[in-house]
């Protein structure tokens, strides 16, 4: 029995802020940031957007593509590190908004930037075990970055949703693998507004050791190599890290194999949404028979890996919802740093 994705959807905010706009406020050298991190601009949520609204937008697009009755969904999982509430699930609001029944297993996941792929992983496992006909996994974030910190140049917003099922599967999940270690490279304590990070430690050993640990184990498990894949998607905290890890793995970073799912230079780091949104961009253009390699990364630290094979079913549903790349490239509204700080509630007020 083939198990995999039966519908996917993405939702990105329209607001953007350019790297130069942020750099000018903090006296930073924009060209060196652009060159060093390969970041040009990032998405910013509107004041009336948050993880729940972006997750609903992505899930509705996934439902449009799948054409399934939302009341048949057995589980709704949302991975994020910016759930609007500290205590109260995001998933219940999303479930009600997309028209699920009340007989749903609902949970919010947190594992830094890996929470989105976790939700996909668990949703897939439920369906594979025969527990339910459909399960929904969402990665969504309105990421936090402290004013003036390096993270402020990348922390952005977006969501991608994937419905797992067994009928009319558009991308089968052939292999999965997870890899983790206790590597404290990035964290946010209770009641803190912004995360802290360990500087260069976030790259090596954290991101690279973990991503490569998962990616190599996934290749070994599948008996495949980089050249067997039409597309690869990695977690993308900046433009540079995924490029470097893809090159180390033997993927061609100058070809569509890498470039289609590489969005961070223009989107920023959508944290839990990053690799799921990259996968959404790949599915938008993938052809039947294509092989997709995806490895997420979450600080703390861990990676989830997936190998997908695109099926003939994809052409029938591809155009039923908005594509990822036009949401990134069109209808953009550029913000000043002042508007950005207001939108992100960074301004301290007495009231």
């Amino acid at each position, binding site marked *: 029995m083939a198990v995999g994705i039966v519908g996917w959807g993405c939702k990105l905010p329209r607001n953007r802020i350019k790297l130069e706009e942020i750099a000018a406020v903090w006296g930073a050298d924009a060209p060196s940031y652009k060159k060093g991190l390969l970041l040009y601009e990032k998405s910013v949520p509107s004041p009336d957007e948050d993880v729940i*609204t972006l997750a609903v937008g992505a899930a509705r697009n996934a439902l449009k593509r799948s054409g399934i009755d939302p009341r048949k969904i057995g589980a709704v999982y949302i991975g994020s590190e910016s759930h609007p509430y500290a205590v109260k699930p995001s998933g219940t609001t999303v479930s009600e908004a997309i028209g699920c029944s009340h007989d749903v297993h609902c949970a919010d996941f947190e594992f830094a930037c890996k929470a989105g792929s976790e939700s996909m992983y668990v949703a897939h496992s439920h369906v594979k075990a025969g527990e339910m006909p459909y399960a929904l996994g969402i990665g969504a974030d309105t990421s936090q970055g402290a004013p003036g910190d390096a993270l402020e140049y990348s922390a952005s917003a977006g969501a991608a949703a994937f419905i797992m099922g067994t009928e009319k599967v558009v991308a089968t999940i052939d292999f999965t693998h997870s890899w983790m270690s206790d590597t404290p490279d990035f964290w946010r304590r209770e009641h803190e507004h912004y995360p802290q990070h360990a500087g260069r430690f976030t790259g090596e050993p954290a991101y690279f050791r973990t991503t490569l640990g998962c990616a190599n184990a996934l290749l070994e498990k599948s008996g495949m190599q980089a050249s067997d894949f039409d597309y690869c998607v990695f977690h993308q905290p900046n433009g540079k890290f995924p490029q470097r890890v893809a090159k180390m793995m033997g993927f061609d970073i100058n070809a569509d194999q890498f470039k289609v799912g590489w969005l961070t230079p223009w989107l920023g780091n959508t944290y839990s949404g990053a690799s799921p949104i990259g996968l959404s961009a790949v599915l938008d253009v993938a052809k039947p028979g294509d092989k997709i390699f995806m490895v997420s990364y979450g600080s703390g630290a861990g990676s989830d890996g997936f190998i997908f094979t695109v099926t003939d079913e994809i052409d029938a549903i591809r155009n039923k919802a908005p594509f990822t790349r036009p949401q990134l490239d069109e209808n953009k509204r550029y913000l000043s740093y002042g508007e950005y700080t207001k939108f992100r509630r960074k301004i301290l007020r007495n009231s």
Partner: protein
Amino acid sequence: MAQTLTARVWREQPQRYRMIANRCTRTGKVFFPPRIVAPGNLNAEFEEVQLSGKGKVVTFTIIRVAPTPYADLAPYALAVIETEEGVRLTAQVSDLPIEQVKIGMSVDFEFRRLFEDNEASVIYYGYKAVPA
């Protein structure tokens, strides 16, 4: 006060979250929010309809001095929108500078944060219009 509002908004979830309307089985007219009795023919039999989430701006006004929960969003457009089903409703137009809001423009309804009493309160969600 906050608890009363929480309960009221919770009861309105089908309309606020999913735009659930109803259609008179006799005339086919769609009502939003749903009616118990159809005006004109007193028919009490309806079928449930989910609005398509698409419409056109019939008219609008610009709110510059907004009530407290919406103060940070001002200035914004509040529009009367006719949906594809012929229903007219009032909604904020989001994601668009006020000078670009036009009568007759096509809009989609999206799920957005509506308001909150304060940073510790429940967050209320519902539909807003965005440019199609």
